[in-house]
């Protein structure tokens, strides 16, 4: 009889605990799996250092090279728009900050809700654009597997349900808020076992790239 409130409490309670546990355990497993494969000690005389260039590449890879940007601007712009929309919505919406504060014990200032709202809309539009691009661009089409659509959906649902919940477009509110939280939990649960892991591993990947090239005296 109390479906939507029970659902919300379940989503905010047991389900959240389970999802967070799977997320944390999964991410740690995945990172261990990667690092445990090791990297052979390089015996060649280095021409440059590894650490600094690796760190530098972590930053510099955020910007595209002009040539590939000109060839595929939508990948870059769509990617930026949806990532920024997503990150602003995730990290600068005050209710979310409260959650982080409760989890980690520290917080940061948020943005006024209308700005976050706009960012969420951009995020949604960006995601729709990259989906369209994935469905039409020949290169992306050949690379795309079911998992790519799955991770798209996992990313899209929290934004969509969050938007609906914020604007109270679905009644009753506990139901849509519960759906929003559930969609995030779905994301958390599948995160470690899908390409969503790039969120963390891209730092490793960029570092390795920068370090291996840096050792040869090349800024990558």
């Amino acid at each position, binding site marked *: 009889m109390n479906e939507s409130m029970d659902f919300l409490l379940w989503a905010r*309670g047991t389900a*959240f605990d389970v999802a967070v546990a799977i997320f944390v355990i999964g991410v740690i*497993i995945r990172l261990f*799996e990667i690092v445990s494969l090791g990297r052979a000690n390089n015996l060649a005389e280095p021409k440059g250092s590894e650490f600094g260039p690796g760190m530098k590449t972590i930053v510099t890879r955020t910007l595209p090279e002009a040539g590939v940007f000109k060839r595929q601007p939508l990948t870059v712009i769509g990617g930026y728009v949806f990532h920024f929309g997503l990150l602003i919505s995730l990290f600068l919406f005050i209710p979310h900050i409260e959650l982080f504060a409760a989890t980690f014990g520290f917080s940061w200032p948020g943005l*006024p809700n209308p700005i976050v709202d706009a960012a969420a809309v951009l995020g949604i539009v960006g995601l729709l654009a990259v989906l369209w691009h994935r469905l039409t661009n020949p290169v992306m089409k050949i690379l795309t597997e079911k998992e790519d659509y799955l991770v798209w959906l996992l990313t899209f649902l929290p934004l969509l349900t969050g938007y609906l919940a914020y604007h109270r477009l679905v009644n009753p509110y506990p139901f849509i808020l519960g759906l929003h939280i559930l969609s995030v939990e779905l994301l958390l649960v599948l995160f470690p076992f899908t390409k969503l892991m790039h969120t963390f591993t891209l730092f490793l990947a960029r570092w390795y790239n920068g370090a291996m090239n840096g050792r040869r005296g090349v800024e990558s």
Partner: protein
Amino acid sequence: MADPRTKTLGETLRRHGVSRRGFLKFCTATASMMALPPSMVPAVAAALDKASRPSVIWLSFQECTGCTESLTRSHSPTLESLIFDHISLDYHHTLQVASGHAAEKAREEAMHANHGNYLVVVDGSIPLGNPGYSTTAGVSNLQTLEETVAGAAAVIAVGTCAAFGGLPKAYPNPTGAVAVRDIVHDKPVINVSGCPPIPMVITGVLAHYLTFGTLPQLDQYGRPMNFYGTSIHDRCYRRPFYDKGLFADTFDDEGARKGWCLYKLGCKGPMTYNACATAKWNEGTSWPVESGHGCLGCSEPNFWDAGGFYNALSIPVGEVSRSVSYAAAAGLAVGAAAAGLNSRAKAKAKKNHGTVTVDDLEKKS
């Protein structure tokens, strides 16, 4: 003097010196409360005027008397209280003078005399864990409820305990408390939730019943839509601050003094459906958010278990940081195992390396 049971509401009100004008004013307020158009006011007035005095049996189970306190004492001598005066409260064991067998006899008499027509008001939850947890005159609440409801026209579950189980049902629910709706399935049950509920909402429900002879339209929780159709958040006068991102961080900071949004201080307004923001309390004096405290969500099911009162709604119910640290510890253990598997697999591959020479670069066959 006519039998009070047959006297109409109009008569009772007039006897108490309520003018026609005052009565119409009350009808207008009631109609607007029930979200009826102004054109309905005369109809409401006519219906209420002629409404006969229904017999009401008030059962108190696992409750704190807060609902009764709220409903009975706070309005005197308002019109709402007259509504209560008007009903024939044939049994209310907190209020009635009679006790023991005499009281139970009054209840039984009322049930017989008004079979099929009386209203049962319940406050408090019903323990199913052990019937002995809560009894009246040695009779378990469950039995009392079932007996009393059998001949009733409808049941009004007053307060969150009766409506949703309330505090007794809060984790770990030691008495196995349940709500009225969990037991009564064959009679209309109207939930008037709140801890306590707004008195005006009770009178509104009664007024509706008296006016139309039917029960109001209910939401998915069995609550009258008229009162529970909009969330606190949607009607909150502090809502513009939420939209602008202006929040009080503590109860005594500048934001609090300026009346900014109380979301961060745990206000459950966004998920709570009730009429507090419009009906207010204590004769329209104020309501929790106006007094500087966030909504507790008291009219919602399981609100006691919905996380700390002072935790923002977005904060999960459980202790996330504890979950995260346990998971991290478990992750380190499982991760180390996974790492071990990978190192072993790779070492095995190295061991199985078959040296490649230029003579075996081509497939045989």
